[in-house]
């Protein structure tokens, strides 16, 4: 664990905690962006350029904006009056523990572990942008097409919802 990793991890955790505990929803969204940016930096520090930069492009460039718009369009910017810690936290904590547990179990059982445990393997060449592109166009072309179809359907749906109804 290097100093840089410790710094990034600290900032990410602080952002995540602030995103949960602040009163003003827009502040929460901005802190969430900090946590997402920290995660992207972690990916970059692991030499996973494509994943890290895609994380910034998608999460900070698009998802954060979406969250912020959703907050502005659904309620006033005034902070809510009820306390931050409510009874729904028990349920949320249970779901969080279950999710973390299943993810951790899946990761620990996956075939990646032996290779990752060996630091001599050239990880950087394995996650290079070229390799990801080749894999997407050969081995994973069907999932890619399915995702494309799904996104097109979502796009058409959005257009239909936003379309003016001619009849009125």
């Amino acid at each position: 664990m290097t100093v840089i990793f410790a710094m990034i991890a600290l900032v990410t955790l602080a952002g995540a905690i602030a995103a949960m505990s602040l009163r003003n929803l827009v502040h929460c969204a901005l802190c969430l962006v900090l946590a997402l940016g920290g995660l992207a930096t972690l990916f970059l520090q692991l030499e996973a350029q494509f994943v890290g930069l895609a994380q910034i492009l998608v999460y900070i460039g698009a998802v954060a904006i979406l969250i912020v718009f959703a907050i502005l369009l659904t309620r006033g910017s005034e902070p809510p009056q009820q306390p931050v810690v409510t009874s729904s936290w028990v349920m949320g904590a249970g779901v969080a523990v279950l999710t973390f547990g299943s993810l951790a179990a899946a990761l620990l059982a996956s075939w990646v572990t032996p290779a990752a445990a060996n630091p001599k393997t050239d990880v950087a060449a394995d996650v290079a942008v070229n390799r990801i592109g080749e894999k997407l166009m050969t081995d994973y072309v069907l999932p890619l097409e399915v995702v494309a179809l799904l996104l097109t359907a979502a796009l058409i749906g959005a257009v239909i919802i936003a379309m003016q109804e001619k009849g009125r």
Partner: protein
Amino acid sequence: MTDFCDQIFVLLAHWLVGTFPVSWRPLVSAIVSVSSIMAVFGLLFGLTTVVERKTIGRIQNRYGPNRVGLPFTELRLFGFGQFIADGIKALTKEDVVPRAADQVVHFLAPLILIVPVFLAFSVVPVGRNMVPIDIDAGVLFFFAVGAGTELAVFTAGWSSRNKYSLLGAMRAIAQMISYEVPLIISTITVVMLVGSLSTVKIVEAQADYSGQLPQWHVFTPWGFAGFVLFLIAAMAESNRSPFDLPEGESEIIAGYFIEYSGFKFAVFFLAEYLGMFAISGMAITLFLGGWTAPLAMLDWLPSWLWFFGKLMALIFLFIWVRGTVPRLRIDQLMHFAWKFMLPMALINIVAAGLWRFLPPGLGRWLVCSAILLVPYFLLGKALMGERRFAKRKYRYAE
């Protein structure tokens, strides 16, 4: 001698880094790169503001700044000292923060804006061997850091607690997200043909000459279409006129930075211009051959001179467009992005793919041009609908 002139800044940086102990060198090298980017593009920003005011003045039949020279001297320099005076004024002005504003976020917004804008320069090659960081995913890096500016604009607009600034931020985000789509899709063609996301490799792919003529991407049908689409989207991304609705002085006063004054306002101004430089630099890298010379016989001139020459030419184009084209309405802006730019950018991908696999020759030119020109005319005609343009008739009071 030619090589020396070409590499003078690289050699200078190497010498400077070499004077430090080995363990310090990575840090010193980074500081040298960062400070030279900040100094060069900061100075270019200052000069561009004067050039812009003088050019716009010329277009509008007035003088523009022509008095202020260097401080403490009699040198007038045709008014090119104006930006020094402007900078001192911005630094010493009172910084007014509205009482209702969200103090912390209001303070942070200009910082969140300026950092990604400076980061974007780190992958733009400004000359042979002159790129601060050469990473595998350079183009992706450029667009990823560019995504941060949208959030900064929202932060500025929201934290001011002003309806005008929130409206301006909403407009800015809608515009930037809409035009980011054709911007990135028009870039994909270059990445497809070069086969790399590295900006250095993209420039090297255009560095050869066929006879005297360069092999820049802009001199192919798909490259020309891509360059025009990229440039229009770049104007919208950097909120330049005719896409300056987020500022819209006549409707929403100054948009998202209405509640900023003093040096914070200057930072917004700086970020807008630096964003314009960065995206122009990217356009040069992708389509205009980066630092390569336009004719093989002019290759002896230093590479950085060509890059900055092309940059100045593009900046002049931006100023020219600002001085002559009226601002779009918000619905026109959206229609243009989604109904014209996006289909054309998608068709351009098909044209680029065909260009790659057809044998070189006249046939390739005809097929690719037809694929782009026919939809261009059909789409234009369909979107025009029943409207017809004729010479404007003036009616005067009698």
